[in-house]
């Protein structure tokens, strides 16, 4: 019962274009362009590319550190050129690649999986442009910087797909005190999610949870005799009057959201729900600021 995978189409597209940049990345770049890439400078001297200040040399400075051009203009002092410290952060992404994400209620809506990948990749683009290191925990891909890493991420997003219905998050290969971003619908069992997040918090990892939902999942606009099936076909539930279930379903959904929100609040993480019908840039902006906050 799996939908024709959007990712195989993606791959096909990518191959057809004979380029390493699949539409997903282009899309993500486009999305990323909507968020102004702010300066990541630490406002102090350190390792970096940007010029920060000239200071008079003092004892202990190596001769090669002296900026001779500046010093030649001075009468008697030697100057050292200092750069701004630009520390790179490691951000670990975890993306739900389970079957439940392969769902779109209408033809003109993207599936949750595509939406999640767009947002995640756009975030990666933004971060890598800002000089940060980005990794993907699904594959145990360690955080790295540079365009090559972006290509690797894109490939991973485009090809990777899990068979399981709902996958629990994991944080393999996440460095201590790094940042983490979980993107999922969080429809699966709550316990593994909880466990994964608390474990991450234990390792000093700070981060954000982005829940991606379809508008239909929020509205439950069904009526009449219905058999509900999960996307992977493993779960099913039959009802005679779907309309009667609406309130109880919505209650459960709200409960789930509340649980996640409480959990994140307790460990200093952040939680946001995004619907595929909404503008993806809102979610991206939220994610970006959520990560900024930790600086």
């Amino acid at each position, binding site marked *: 019962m799996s939908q024709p995978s959007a990712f195989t189409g993606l791959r096909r597209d990518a191959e057809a274009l004979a380029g390493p940049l699949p539409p997903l990345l282009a899309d993500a770049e486009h999305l990323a362009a909507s968020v102004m890439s702010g300066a990541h400078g630490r406002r102090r001297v350190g390792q970096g590319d940007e010029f920060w200040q000239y200071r008079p040399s003092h004892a202990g400075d190596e001769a090669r550190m002296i900026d001779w051009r500046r010093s030649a203009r001075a009468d008697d002092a030697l100057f050292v050129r200092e750069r701004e410290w630009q520390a790179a952060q490691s951000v670990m992404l975890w993306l739900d690649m389970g079957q439940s994400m392969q769902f779109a209620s209408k033809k003109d809506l993207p599936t949750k999986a595509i939406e999640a990948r767009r947002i995640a990749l756009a975030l990666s683009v933004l971060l890598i442009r800002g000089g940060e290191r980005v990794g993907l925990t699904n594959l145990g891909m360690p955080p790295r910087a540079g365009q090559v890493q972006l290509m690797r991420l894109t490939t991973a997003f485009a090809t990777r797909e899990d068979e399981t219905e709902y996958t629990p998050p994991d944080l393999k290969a996440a460095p201590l005190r790094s940042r983490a971003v979980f993107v999922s619908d969080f429809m699966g069992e709550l316990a593994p999610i909880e466990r994964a997040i608390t474990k991450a918090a234990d390792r000093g990892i700070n981060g954000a949870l982005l829940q991606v939902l379809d508008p239909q999942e929020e509205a439950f606009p069904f009526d009449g005799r219905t058999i509900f099936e999960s996307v992977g076909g493993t779960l099913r539930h039959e009802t005679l*009057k779907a*309309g009667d*279930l609406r309130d*109880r379903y919505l209650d*459960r*959904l709200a409960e789930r959201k509340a649980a996640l929100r409480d959990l994140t609040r307790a460990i200093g993480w952040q939680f946001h729900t995004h619907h595929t019908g909404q503008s993806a840039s809102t979610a991206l902006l939220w994610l970006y600021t959520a990560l900024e906050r930790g600086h």
Partner: protein
Amino acid sequence: MFTIGSVGFTAPWLLLGLIALPILWLLLRAVPPAPIRRMFPGVALLLGLADDETQTDRTPWWLLLLRTIAIAAAIIGFAGPVLNPKTETVGTGPLLVLVEGGWAEAQDWNRRIDRIEALLDEAGQAGRETALVALTDLPPEDGFVFQSADAIATQLPGILPQAWLPDGETVLSWLDAVEGDFDTFWLSSGLALDWREAALDDLQSRGSVTVFESPRAVLGLKPASFADGNIELEVLRSRGGSDAVVGVAAHGLDPNGTPRQLARLDIEFDAGDTAATGLLSLPAELRNRVTRFEIEGVRSAGAVSLTDDSLRRREVAILSAREEREGLQLLSPTHYLEQALVDTADLIDGAITDIVLANPDVVILADIVTLADSETEALETWVREGGLLLRFAGTRLAGSDYGRDAEDVLMPVRLRAGGRTVGGAMSWGEPKALRPFGPDSPFFGLVVPEDVTVSSQVMAQPDPTLAERTIASLADGTPLVTRKRLDLGQVVLFHVTANADWSSLPLSGLFVQMLERLAVSTQSAALTAEDLEGTTWTLDQQLTGFGEVAEAGILPGVAGEALAEGPPGPDLPPGLYSGENRRIALNVLGREASLSPAVWPADVPVEGFAIQQETPLAGMALSLALLALLVDVLAALALSGRLTGATAALVLAALIAAPEAQAQESQAQESQADIERLLAATSEVRLAYVVTGDTTLDATSEAGLRGLSDVLFRRTSIEPVEPVAVNLEMDELSVYPFLYWPISESQPRPSPDAYERLNRYLRTGGMILFDTRDASTSGFSTATPNGRRLQQLALPLDIPPLEPIPSDHVLTRTFYLLQDFPGRFVSRDVWVEAAPEDAERAEGMPFRNLNDNVTPVVIGGNDWAAAWAVDARGAPMYPVGRGFAGERQREIAYRFGVNLIMHVLTGNYKSDQVHVPALLDRLGQ
């Protein structure tokens, strides 16, 4: 047929299917609507939620009911239900179908025929022999046989209502002669007939009689008559029912000779009345055109009343010599004439030339001798075209030399000088009485009163033609009235005065009758047998039973007495009869007519149209089934949660709004196309031509303008795009600076709206080039068909005064210096707006300062488009002239086109004197 109440079934066995309905009920009840399978990731949250109710796995009762109704309706529908099935008992033995066949039945003839057909069908099924007889058209007694109903049915179309009613004596004698017993089905007209009882007795003695009678009242229209200058119309009906309004229309020829309705009048019946009168007031001109009145919506001869001369008022001009004495009315030469005519004719007076222009029917000259030459000519022309000139003698005529030596054109005979007086104080003899009128005289049949005497008269010269020209004479044989025919008209001379000076004739009633006979006046009273005695009339136009006016074939003449007296019948069909000078209408209903309903004895069953018709109900039942199924579809969708608002709206919209949407869409497309067209026209210069409807001509126009556009593009800074066709009725004109309008004979005339737009176009600076394309045959003139058509087409256009294009017109030098404007033909006659009167030539300048504007029209016949026309490859399409000279002519034609478009776009720029020096340079002056 199996019947329940008033409903019968053609296939009753199918109704057994209804027994299966309870089984169906049980089956349907057990099968709930199928579930929908939905993919839903949120199912994880649903797990463990139980339904509140469990009993809905059965179909709800109302849905079951709906389905049962649908199926029951289908079963009943296919069983062929019929409301009011015909279950008549059919008699045996021969059946006589009796149709009266008069005009009164014409108004619902088709329904009668339908009834007869049904009757014949029944008789045919029952194997009865039948006969069909129309009482107005009785078969010969030995030719009357009963035949099979099929054979009779073939005769049915041959039976038509006649324009008269059956004659009682004939019918009764025919019935006497018929032998044998039979049943009778009598289709009655509903009018009372005096012989009806006798005929009914006879028929009843032979078998049962059933009567069929229309419940509708028979309507009739009496002949129109004059009442105080209005036309009085009286409508009759056979039964005094409730209030009713009947429309009466007056038909006649309009001034173009087209038959049309000239006026109409609503006449109201009060409840219970059988007659109603209405007054119609019409101007004399219109009244004289009326040929018939008819009741609207009634198709029968009785509802039509033909009009004859009695409704016409003749226009009579009376002229007399100057009054010598004032105030002596009784001595006035025209007093008695005016008295005789004032009731029946419209009198006009004035100068002769003016009167002739008004084309009166009669001109009366009372003792007028001298006429100017022009007056004589005018009168003669008028008489020759059919006028009647009536002259009276008098002292002036007697004393003049007029018509003495030679016969005057406007005088029937030559006169002897002086005249004569008899029976006066100074003469012997008695005043002379009149001799009875001879059979050749138009006055034949008029009774001559004995006290009419003549004491003076002018005398005619004996001539070979005198005898035949005399139409009334005195007892001693001297002519009193002479007449001469002159082509279509005639000149009549009374040898006495028009007043009582010379005779007592003007005092007598005979005078009026004679004037009537001469068709000077018309009488409004009914004609009597005495009036018409001795005359013979032929039928001109015959009235059919359905009230249509048909040309009568050649029929024997009818004696005047019969015409005056007789009711219409086979020998005297109603219609318009013409005699020597006048026409008499014989209508179905006379002036004294009345209509009364037929009364049948109680023992005769009378059947009307209102019998209950068989109504098949199958369609209705099946529609109900379909409707129920449709509702069921919606209900089932709703139950299973598949009916969203969008789906329902879609279904409803598809049902209701499909045609509307389509219409709107096409409309939207149209306006879109319009806008695109306007944008295309305004974004580039575009030459346009008027669509004439003639494909070849339009193609030539387009090719011509394309050729001209190419030339303009190559040679000038005007760079037009493809030319465009303009439909005057639909397209916006104001976006085109120039219209080429070729004239063809068959071109339809634009509508008033189109003319309004054309005029606006011309007034706001547009230019039209009219091309009659016939300079080869005519030069340019109005004598050709195209020229005449152009005149007709351009008549409503606001075109200024025109003149042939002057040699210093700005068109001669807007781009090229030209003196000729050839197209395919060479003609100098090209017309443009005339220069103002005060245009003058300045000293030393070769050109006048002409009008400031672009000429709104250029008219010519040189077929320019053909000279300009090029095909897709740019090669000329039509030959122009011969050899090099021809090519030169084509070149000049192009140059004219270039100049013309330049003129359109730049106006009088080249007229500006600034350019004169340069132009002078070029001209070598």
